[in-house]
């Protein structure tokens, strides 16, 4: 691909972007929704990385969470339920110059989107994936999601949800080529920001599960966690995600080497605490967009190559 064609001009971009420059129309989530915090942190992240608005793309599916792109002043693709990843892959695969983010809800990603999720992780395209996990179907009004706690009462399972929840990180870590897998929470913006920054540095698909408050339907689930910071276990490592504030704020801290896949998987079975931080990172896995980049050809070269093809088929 001729990437020079993708630049507006040869001149270096001298604009400086403030968080507010990324601000779109007012968000329309419920008061207290954790998505507000993620949105605000994302704007700060965009500022800190100085990502060029017109070179930045947020792709989403359908759900409360999927409204995310509407509220940013970047390019956005509010797609269909469960299918954000293929759209993002298509965009990124041929446009390496774009910074592509994927925003999904828990139903969006782990239920209807499960196939794309598994394979999205395996492709390891250079994308940052935010899973906004409120343990419920928000937009459709409180149905069980794969991450809803067992016995939790919902509109489709009013006798209490039947199944043990899926652990999005455990599933991700079972997939070949998983290369960056982290967990954070909307109510710890410093940690969220640090995680997004680490993801931005990572070459490959960064999968970030964000515990997200939904005061409307699952207030009790996340509230408990917000109110008992001691339930959190901050994962530290020199190759992990570090934020001094967070390290001070939370009592429980543990060292975890993100290169240790077995240890990362074992962490997903932890019941005493909720680990926040980088579970796993592997910088050595090729990314799909690079694998498939291909050479650039001019129109003339292409036409010449077509003639060679015609020769093959000549009578």
């Amino acid at each position, binding site marked *: 691909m001729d990437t020079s064609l993708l*630049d507006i001009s040869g001149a270096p971009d001298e604009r400086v972007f403030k968080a507010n420059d990324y601000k779109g129309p007012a968000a329309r989530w419920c008061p207290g929704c954790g998505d507000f915090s993620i949105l605000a942190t994302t704007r700060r992240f965009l500022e800190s990385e100085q990502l060029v608005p017109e070179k930045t793309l947020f792709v989403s599916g*359908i759900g409360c969470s999927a409204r995310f792109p509407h509220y940013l002043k970047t*390019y956005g693709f*509010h797609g269909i339920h469960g299918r954000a990843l293929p759209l993002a892959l298509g965009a990124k695969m041929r446009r390496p110059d774009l910074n592509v983010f994927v925003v999904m809800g828990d139903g969006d990603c782990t239920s209807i989107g499960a196939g794309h999720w598994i394979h999205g992780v395996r492709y390891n395209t250079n994308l940052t994936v935010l899973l906004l996990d409120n343990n419920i179907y928000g937009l459709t009004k409180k149905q069980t999601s794969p991450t809803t706690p067992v016995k939790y009462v919902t509109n489709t399972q009013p006798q209490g949800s039947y199944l043990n929840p899926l652990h999005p990180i455990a599933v991700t870590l079972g997939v070949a080529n998983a290369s960056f897998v982290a967990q954070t929470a909307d109510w710890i913006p410093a940690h969220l920001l640090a995680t997004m920054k680490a993801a931005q540095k990572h070459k490959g698909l960064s999968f970030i599960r964000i515990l997200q408050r939904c005061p409307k339907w699952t207030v009790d689930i996340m509230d408990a966690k917000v109110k008992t910071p001691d339930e959190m276990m901050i994962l530290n490592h020199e190759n992990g995600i570090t934020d001094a504030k967070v390290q001070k704020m939370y009592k429980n801290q543990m060292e975890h080497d993100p290169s240790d896949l077995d240890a990362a998987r074992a962490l997903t079975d932890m019941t005493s605490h909720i680990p926040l931080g980088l579970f796993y990172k592997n910088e050595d896995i090729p990314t799909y967009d690079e694998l498939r980049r291909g050479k650039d050809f001019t129109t003339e070269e292409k036409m010449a190559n077509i003639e060679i093809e*015609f020769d093959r088929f000549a009578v």
Partner: protein
Amino acid sequence: MSTSPSASSEGAQEEYVKVITGLGDQTFTDHSCEVVSDAGEGAQKCGQGFGSLSAKMGNGAWTVEIIPAEIEPPPRTPGSTSGVGIRIGQNKVTNAGDSVKLVIAFNEQVLLSRHRVNSLADDCIILIDSKWSVHKNPKVVAEWDAAMEEMSTKGYQWIMVPLEDETLKIVENPKRGKNMFALGVLCHIYDRDVEIAKDQIAMAFRKKPQAVTDANHQLLEAGIAWAAENLDFRFLVPATPPTSELVVMNGNEAFGMGALAAGIDVCAMYPITPASSLSHYLAEVYDNFGGVVHQAEDEIGAIGVALGASYAGKTAMTITSGPGLALKAEFIGLALMAEIPLVVINVQRGGPSTGLPTKVEQSDLLCVLYGQPGDGPKVVIAPSTIEECFHIMTTARQIAETLRTTVFILSDANLATGVTPFERPKLEASWMAGPPDQTPVDPDSRPYEWDLDTGLSKRFIPGQRGGEHTVTGLNHDENSTVNYEPQKNELAHAMRSRKIAVFGETLNAPIPHGGDEGDILIIGWGSTRGSIEEAVDRARAKGLKASSLHLTFLSPLQPGISAVCERFKKILAVEINYSDDPDAPHITKDNRRRGQLAMLLRGQLLIDCGSWGKVPGAPLQPELLLKVIESNIPKA
């Protein structure tokens, strides 16, 4: 020649003597034959070789694959049949033609399968290896007899060929040699240029040791020699030396090359017959064009990737067939709503459901038109020749981009696996897609700035400064802002519909083949064109006032169809899809299920259009259609 080649009644060995058909040398303007074997015995190579050899000599040619449903099914079963049908002509050949006049069969079971699908003419000359009739395994002999019994209802002319015996004189594994012997036999019968044949063989085996080529040349000559010795007839189809350079390929390859010529950059797909081979072709060569075949996790992922790439400004297509098409419906709806250009190739196969995966059918027209919930105006086009498969790719890309819409291309197994020569296209640089527009956006313009008259608007592509907005599948206004108001919903619907209508105005009225007026007008679409026009020509040669109209555009319809129809007494849509037999029990004018084009023309144009639709899983035979025309001509 034996008319009752029952193994048990007489020794087959005696039959390997000079065959007396009394036919002598005959000249034809065209002639059709088949070569069939068990899967793995190479009849396909033989037949394709015969076809391209003929094309090289300057004959018109059309070959059509005969593919078994399983990969390598048990040998000597009807389901194991693999082969090729070849029609050669003095002039251009536009379709596979009628039932064949000659067949070389490697055993009686594969022959039986061709008999059962009515592929053989009543007086077909059958060259068959008779070894099975005297096989030491009595079960085989019994199978032979049963097959002969079943086929005895037809007046086939039987010729026993020592196919395996002669082959074994030259090579050790007859499975790998009989086909070249058979090619030799065909070369004699059709008086082919042996040097070209030999060159072709040398070319095909150029990467193998010389001994392989030598053995194959020997087999070819043995076949020729045997035929010269034992057959008393030849079928001569004079060749017209080509006046221009030709290329020869199948419809899927033509689509692939057309995509290259159109500058399409991404082919996102999930394997499915009969579309896959298109991606196989592209996967082989795309590296030389900077293109990517993305094999997705499923058809939904495939169209998603294509749409994402297209949204980001690269031209992309997705290709599929039947069951895969079903899975793309939701994304098509999004593409239409968000007005993102997209090209979708649907190589139709027999349905419904898994249906007849390798067979010809034209049953997806209504599904493509109406398969998405809500209102989804779009462009639907159907190439009618393999050459059109090439050129239509540029057309489709340009329409998709200009109208910001989905362009469906409807092909089928007839085009996808048919092989025919056509004029080598003269490439033009303007066919290629340009790079995505990355110029800053005019501050006053909006992402859906519909021209209220035409419904057209210009999209913003990521990277364009000042164009930031979020596309959405929800209803939206000119700014791409979600909007639930009646006026805006009506407007957006109207704009999406209007642009298709406006595009329709730019199309030419279709021109009937045959005459401008008359007793009957056959209307067809897609791969049946060659067969229909040939049938019409034959009907006119008989003095019938028949014509045909072939539609390339199914949505929007070309203007002027009604006007053409008014000049004919009877209109009959002919399609390879299902329609109720009007004479079947319980079927009335009002409840009859009609063919899909018939339904469309009646609904859209209120034309009293009759419907002839069948689902044989095979291309339309001109002779069959001729009969249909004859019986439908209004009585004076």
